[in-house]
Each structure stands twice: as structure tokens, then as C-alpha cells.
């Protein structure tokens, strides 16, 4: 495979990863923490209401995890396409 088509495939895969991770990003904050908050608040999580928990705690934890997942996925992708040097 020449460098150009490797680069194209690499970029396509990267965009896929980004799209999936950003959907989760949107879901936990704007979805669970804002748009669906009132519905989720009916579910208790310990002493929290679930929607409130996502808005003030849960979304932030997920954000951190999302970045580290992306780091891992991309490190693998870099070495698969030989772009890690």
C-alpha cells in the first residue's frame, strides 16, 4: 500500500473513532444531564437523583475515560499504519 492510500484509510478510521466517542460525549452530558434529566431523576443512585448525578458527577468521569480510550485506540492505529515514528 502506498503512503497516500494508507493515509486515507488511517484518516477514515480516525473519523469513525471520533464520531463514536463524540456521540457518547453528547449523550452523557447534553442527553442524560440536560435533555433527559427530569426523566432520569426519577431513578435514585444512592442519595443522588440519576439525572442530577450525570450533570454534576457522571458526565465528568465519562469525559476522562473517553479521552484515554481515544489515546489507546489511536496509539494502536498509529502503529498499524506505521505512523508511529
Amino acid at each position, binding site marked *: 500500500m502506498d503512503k497516500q492510500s494508507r493515509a486515507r484509510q488511517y484518516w477514515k478510521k480516525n473519523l469513525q473513532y471520533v464520531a463514536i*466517542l*463524540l456521540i457518547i460525549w453528547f449523550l452523557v452530558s447534553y442527553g442524560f444531564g440536560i435533555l433527559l434529566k427530569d426523566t432520569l*431523576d426519577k431513578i435514585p443512585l*444512592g442519595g443522588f437523583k440519576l439525572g442530577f448525578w450525570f450533570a454534576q458527577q457522571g458526565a465528568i468521569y465519562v469525559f476522562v475515560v473517553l479521552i484515554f480510550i481515544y*489515546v489507546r485506540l*489511536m496509539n494502536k492505529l498509529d502503529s498499524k499504519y506505521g505512523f508511529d515514528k
Partner: protein
Amino acid sequence: MDVQTWTYVIVGITFALYIGIAIWSRAGSTKEFYVAGGGVPPLANGLATAADWMSAASFLGMAGLISFSGYDGSVYLMGWTGGYVLLALLLAPYLRKFGKFTVPDFIGDRYYSNVARTVAIICALLVSFTYVAGQMRGVGLVFSRFLEVPINTGVIIGMIIVLFYAVLGGMKGITYTQVAQYCVLIFAFMVPAIFISIQMTGNPIPQLGMGGDVVGENISLLDKLDGLSTDLGFDQYTNGSKPMIDIFFITAALMVGTAGLPHVIVRFFTVPRVKDARKSAGYALLFIAILYTTAPAIAVFARTNLIETVSNKAYEEMPDWFSKWETTGLIKFDDKNGDGIIQYVADNNTNELTVDADIMVLANPEIAKLPNWVIALVAAGGLAAALSTAAGLLLVISTSISHDLIKKQIKPNISEKGELIAARLSAVAAVCVAGYFGINPPDFVAATVALAFGLAAASFFPAIIMGIFYKKMNKEGAIAGMLVGIVAMLFYMLKFKFDMFGGGSKEDWWFGISPEGFGTVAMLLNFIVSILISRFTPDPPDEVQEIVETIRIPSGVEEAHLH
């Protein structure tokens, strides 16, 4: 020892540490001055980014703000953390690969235009100056409250310290002092939080204590606070009062604004490789999240404590801290019905107590009766937060002037040595201007911080994103988009915050979106205008499209270019 002696000791030790680091990490070249030589390990960069980002407002102001706004405060929690996901996935790796020194560098080169570069410089300066004034003010406040010196003396002491390590060390000095400052500020934030969490809920982890049961009572803390709030006529703590659309738009504006702030972005130019840029964004958010998930817990503890201490209690029996803060004017008691008892309620006509949200973090250890050294520690933490952010901003300002303006536009043949001198002189000038605003704060500081985020969201974010992800974006589109975004943002802010262009009140907001949330709308306008204009104007030259191809691939990264 009393609080004041403790404060002198702890603040003195931390200041000595910062100065020691500054002397050890002097900058010898422009590359060291601008991007710390491009050799900062990702972990250190994560720590430095966290300190850079968390300002006096995050450390001193945010928990108090949430404490008085309950669920509505979530906009800050999600907004000021979610932006890092955007940074890590959409910006940081590519800007690192691009490998220059500043955001205007990227905008100017990618859009092959000095007009675009100049627009970016103006935005960077506007955003950074707005921000830095607030930081210097924070330094002054902490000094005046804990060391009992006048606010202005406090500002000047802060200026001298920042001047010392920012001018001497540039980015290199700032980076390593920020690492130390993160450690000081997070320790100072967590210690009282853990103490109070144990006191109130028996759980040493504040994030869990917040959702736990009240010690000795059979009710969860949040339920109890909801009950106390509604009894006094306030909104339920876990529900808040802002309309959903406004919460949505403010959160988005803060997230995108965060990802577009030049002093945050520039930190990702300092790591050696593209993969380090991704990783250090992860570390940065991890370290930020420790404070940002603790703040809402502190907010709940402080609010509950406050209501229980003051509500329907005799004024005569108030503890020491109450009168101490009364003298600063940040707590006010007005005995409207003359019964000597504090009525703290939502109704403005009968409410007798006003508490400034800014004092909650500072007063919290005293309200919870923690030992004196903890109170002193909080003072040192507040100073660390304010100084680290101020230094990062000052560096952006001085780089914009010496590099983007002088080297790139006015005098391209300036020598390396001359540019370094110019960078140091601009840093001195920037510190003086920041100090002036700290001593004579414009009374619109609070409004302008929202403006800073709005502007960053409306200008930088779309221009950078399209520069990376949309190869055909050309200079005409990008410049038009940035200008439309900035103008729309300024117009809305001036109309609804400063009563210009006919003014207007809350009811007149477009779609119920507040000026704080309008950055999202301005950003969307920027995207739309840029794409439309670029369709009707020539494609960018081939060599620019090739640049875009190369920044998408992480390999073959050069160290940050030497100019």
C-alpha cells in the same frame, strides 16, 4: 499559631518554591520562551495544563456559585470539562503536528493570510486581557482577607512574583511552576473537603459523601438540602431555575470556548510528539476532574452548613467568622423586622441576609470549624490558582506581540536575541496592564468573562476545526466567518449586558438564550457563513491543502519550528 501566622508561613514557603523553580528553569532561546523547547513530558504537561486552566474563579468562585444555584451550576461543571474531550479529539494532536508556536500562527499559515492572522491576534489579546484582570483581582482579595494588607498591595505583590518567573523563565519557567502550583492548589482544595465530608456524612470521599446520608439522621444529604431550600422558598437544590434551552446553550458555549482558549491550546505545543498531545489532554482532564467533581460536593456541604448555622438564629450568637466577613462587606445582615433573628429566605422583601457567593470556599473551613493551618492552606491554594492562570495568559499576550505581531508582520528579520528581548519586554508591559486592571477593576469583569468564552467559541474554534477537517476551507470563508462570529457575539453582549442598541431584558432574549449561552449561536453562524462563502470563492492553493494532509498524520513530526 493563629491563622495569620500560619498563612504567612505557608504562603511564604510556596512563593519561595515558585521563585526557586523560576531560577532553575530560565529560558535561553525563543523556543524555550514560547513552548518550553517542545520537550515537556505529557504527565508534566497535564499537571501544568490543569493549573493553567483552573483559575481563581474555579478555585474560589465555582463551588460558591454552584452552592447558590444548585443544578443550574452544572453548566460550569460540564462546560469547563467537556471542552477537553473536544481538545483531545479534534484539536490538540493536529495543532501539535502543525508545530508552530501560537494559535494566530496556525490561523495565519493555514489561511495564507495576514488579515486572518491579525484577526486572530486581536481575539487572543481580547480574551487574555479580560481573563487576566480577574486573576490579579483574585490575588488581591486573598491577600487582603488573610494577610490583612490592602487589596492593592496584594495585587502588586502578585505582580512582582508573576513578573519574576514569567519574564525570566517564559513558557519553560511557567510550566514547572505550574506543576508545583497544581500540587499546592489541589491539596488545599481537597483537605477541607475531606474533613467536612467526614463531619457531615462520615464518608472521607467528598464525591460519595455528597450522595450519602447525613450523620445521625436517616435522610440523604441532597434530600435534606432540597427540603431546607424549599422550606425557605428557594428552588429545589437539585432542580434549579434556568430554562432547559439556556442550560444547553451555556454548556455548549463554555465547552467550545474552553477548547478555543489560546492559553490552553498553546500548552499542547510544548510536548515532544503527537501522541503526547493526546495523552497530556487526558492527564489534564483527569487532574481537573479531581477538583471539578469535588466542587459540587463542597457546594452541597457549604450550603447546608450555612443554612443550618444562620437560618432563624439570633444575630448575637453568630460565630466569629460571621462578623469577620461582615467587615469585608461580603456578608450583609439587615434586621428588617427588628427581632434580632436572621431570616434567610428567597423572598427579597423579607430576606435579611446576603452572602456573596465568592466567599464560600474561603469561609467554608471556618464555618466547619477546621484547624487554622487548613484555613491558611486554602489561602495558598487560591493564590496558586490565580498566579498559575495569570502567568499562562501573560505568556499568550507577550507571544502574540513579540512573535505574531513583531516577528511575523512588522519586522521579520529581527534576530533571535532581539525577539527574546521583545518577548520579555511585552511580558513586563502585559503584567503592568494586568496589574492596573486588578487595582482598578472594570465593573464589568463578570460580564466580560462570559464574553471571553463567547469570543473564543465564535472565532477560534470554528476556524481551527475547519482548518483541520475541511480541506477546501479558504481564507475568504474563514475570515468572513470569524468576523461574523465576533460581531454577533459583541452585538448580543452589548445589547443585553450594557444596554446598547436598544437594550432589552430577560424576556427579550432570542429563544430564551442568555448572553452567556450566545457563544454557541455565534459559533454556528461562523460555521454557516464560512462554508457558504468558501463555496463561492477559489479553493485554497495546493500547498495549503498539502499542509492539511500532513497535519492529519502523526508521523514525521518536527520539533516546534525555529524561526
